[in-house]
């Protein structure tokens, strides 16, 4: 039985609330003073982790479609992509407002000394136009350029991984895990691309 428009609206609402739970959970912990010894770090890393996770989930939708032949995952692409941007925005906001305390002097001192911060800022700059052009109207307006522009997400995934690798002190297990996931998702796309080419021939 095909799902109705109302069904999809309900499913999307549920997914939306699920995507919001990491934010709410950190917010509740914050209100209850449960963020540990270094609450700013907990918020900063928490939002950063979720930005990267949503980016990975978003990048997984097409590979899921390729493998399963189902097109429904694509329905969630815009929402999940925007959640990646939402968590990346919170991550940056915590850095600027809480970690740097909005101090220009601190920013000017810390950013040039930290290549990983630069990689993070580049990632955010790459994601911003994608979020800004995520509406249906913008999609129509940009036409075929829209797709070209949104390929920036692949670059953003790579700079996000560089950002993570560069900031880690010694234990690379986490960034390696995310790098493996992103690599796998890229490989599936590439294989699919070449398979399509050969079928067309």
């Amino acid at each position, binding site marked *: 039985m095909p799902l109705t428009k109302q069904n999809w609206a309900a499913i999307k609402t549920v997914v939306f609330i699920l995507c919001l739970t990491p934010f709410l959970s950190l917010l509740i912990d914050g209100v209850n003073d449960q963020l*540990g*010894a*270094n*609450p700013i770090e907990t918020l900063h890393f928490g939002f950063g982790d979720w930005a990267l996770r949503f980016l990975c989930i978003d990048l997984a939708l097409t590979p899921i479609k390729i493998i399963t032949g189902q097109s429904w995952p694509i329905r969630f692409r815009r929402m999940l992509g925007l959640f990646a941007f939402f968590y990346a925005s919170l991550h940056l906001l915590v850095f600027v407002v809480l970690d740097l305390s909005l101090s220009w002097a*601190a920013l000017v001192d*810390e950013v040039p000394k930290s290549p990983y911060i630069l990689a993070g800022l580049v990632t955010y700059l790459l994601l911003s136009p994608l979020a800004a052009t995520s509406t249906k109207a913008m999609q129509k307006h940009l036409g075929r350029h829209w797709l070209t522009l949104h390929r920036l997400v692949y670059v953003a995934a790579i700079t996000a991984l560089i950002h993570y690798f560069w900031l880690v002190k010694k234990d690379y297990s986490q960034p390696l895990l995310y790098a493996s996931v992103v690599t796998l998702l890229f490989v599936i796309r590439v294989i699919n691309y070449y398979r399509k080419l050969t079928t067309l021939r």
Partner: protein
Amino acid sequence: MLIKSQTEIASHNVTDRKVFESRRQFIKAATALSASAILPNQAQAQAGKYANVTASPYSIAVAATDREDVTNYTNYYEFSTNKQDSTVLARALTTSPWSIEVSGETEKPGVYHLEDILKDNPVEERIYRFRCVEAWSMVVPWVGFPLGAMLKRFKPTSKAKFVQFTTLYNPDIMVGQRSHVLEWPYVEGLRMDEAMHPLTILATGMYGDALPNQNGAPLRLIVPWKYGFKSIKAIVKIEFTEAMPATAWNKSAPGEYGFYANVNPDVPHPRWSQSRERVLGSSLFTPKRATEKFNGYGEQVASLYSGMDLTQFF
């Protein structure tokens, strides 16, 4: 055995919960006040193992960080690279009995029981600022004794130019040692004059009580003007050497972690600034504190490095 295990503590020695909580409230209130107005030693009064230790004049007059934060935020890679997980995992470590092997350029090499060492070395309280290379800091009321006084008893020979410390190696208990995140066992070292400096201590306790396992029980080094990774935990071996010891973090990333590792806001880590530090326990909107050269102990220790280029010997 002189060292009492946790289970042997008589009930009259255990702090009443109400007293404990009111103390915490007091500390919280005290922290909120201007730090200069506080007598830190009074804030630490507690009915622990070292309840009545004398406060040392080497202490700084700054309110201590909440004990809860200090005991749940440790870099103890022998157990985990996660600062909270090490708290739980370190419970598996048995710290009594404990012995320390003394070797190298000394007239008195041998294996010494920790309790015998403690008999000869009366402890005192040292409230020090602890600055991690990761750009956070805390203020800890350590309980310990000067390292120099102890080292002198081992009669180092004239060839002894450095002291090397080694952490316990036991991957069955120290589960982090099963991964190769660092070269095990963890090794640290000091130049002889650094080791003999009166600020350098070996800690056996903190907050008036025994040292929790995750904070380096039963014996750890504390060198307050150096980054935290110099302050090696769970020491089982002390060796006097002629050559500069090859230390754990230095071996792992020589371009990032030097042998000296003196706190220095002017020498950034290759990947981040050391100009400021996040003070644990401060509010969400408190700006980071400006890091002081030698972690604020410059008056006492700067002369150890006169004539040295601290950018080169970082």
